[in-house]
């Protein structure tokens, strides 16, 4: 089964919390999404470049405030995040 970057963001939202600074692990995301770790890490890297996820030095990951706000927009399609254009 393939997962999209949005699937990973939504799962990250379920497992972590931005305001509480509560992270989760890549392994936990991998288990929940039933996909290989490499795929999840690739999507997390992409989400980090969009400032939607934050990966700490211990390998723990959490959704950011920006990521939570993006999901709250409940968008269907075509999303480009431009952190440098803000």
């Amino acid at each position: 089964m393939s997962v999209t970057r949005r699937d990973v963001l939504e799962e990250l939202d379920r497992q972590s919390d931005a305001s509480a600074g509560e992270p989760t692990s890549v392994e936990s995301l991998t288990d929940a999404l039933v996909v290989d770790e490499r795929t999840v890490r690739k999507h997390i890297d992409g989400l980090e470049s969009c400032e939607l996820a934050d990966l700490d030095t211990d390998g723990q990951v959490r959704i950011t405030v920006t990521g939570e706000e993006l999901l709250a927009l409940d968008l269907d399609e075509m999303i480009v995040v431009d952190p440098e254009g803000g």
Partner: protein
Amino acid sequence: MSEHDTNEAAEAVQYDPSSSRYDVFECPDCDNVVLALGRDDPPMSCHGDPMQRVTDCDIAVKPPDVRQVLLDAFGLPKAGLDICLCVIGEGPLSANEVAESLGYDRSTVTRYLNKLVDIGLLRRSELNREEGGVVNVYHSVDLERMRRETLIGFYIWAGEAAALIEEANVTKQDYMAENPDQELPEVFWESFPDD
């Protein structure tokens, strides 16, 4: 006939009333001509009477290229369409990723994203970032709204084009009436300055 002429002739298309892709109606009593997409139910009317489907148009036209249509009607270059196509089904992507994927500068991607917002094909939202400030997010408008906006936008452009053609026909008619012995081209184009 040159090779160029042959290619042009091969490319030209004529209106096919039986294709049902679109319909062209005309009023039997005046100059009104309308283009209709979709069903002819109820039929178009003018002066309270049904218009007639055009069945005898001899002129051939060069088939439009979608990239050229987007550029001419909306000022949207191919790069703008590339950005939309690149992101569909893959988002969220960063502007840097889109730029790398398409081989454009990031500033070019940002410029066209803003152009797409100006045209009305995208929306821009500002999201808070944790370190302060905001992040710009570009996203699709509702698909049904996009369909309506692009179609009506194109019809407006087509209406402007049709008005120009009508103006040209009237200009030609007036000139020939006033100057039956003189060449038409110079005066004709002078009435449509380049700028």
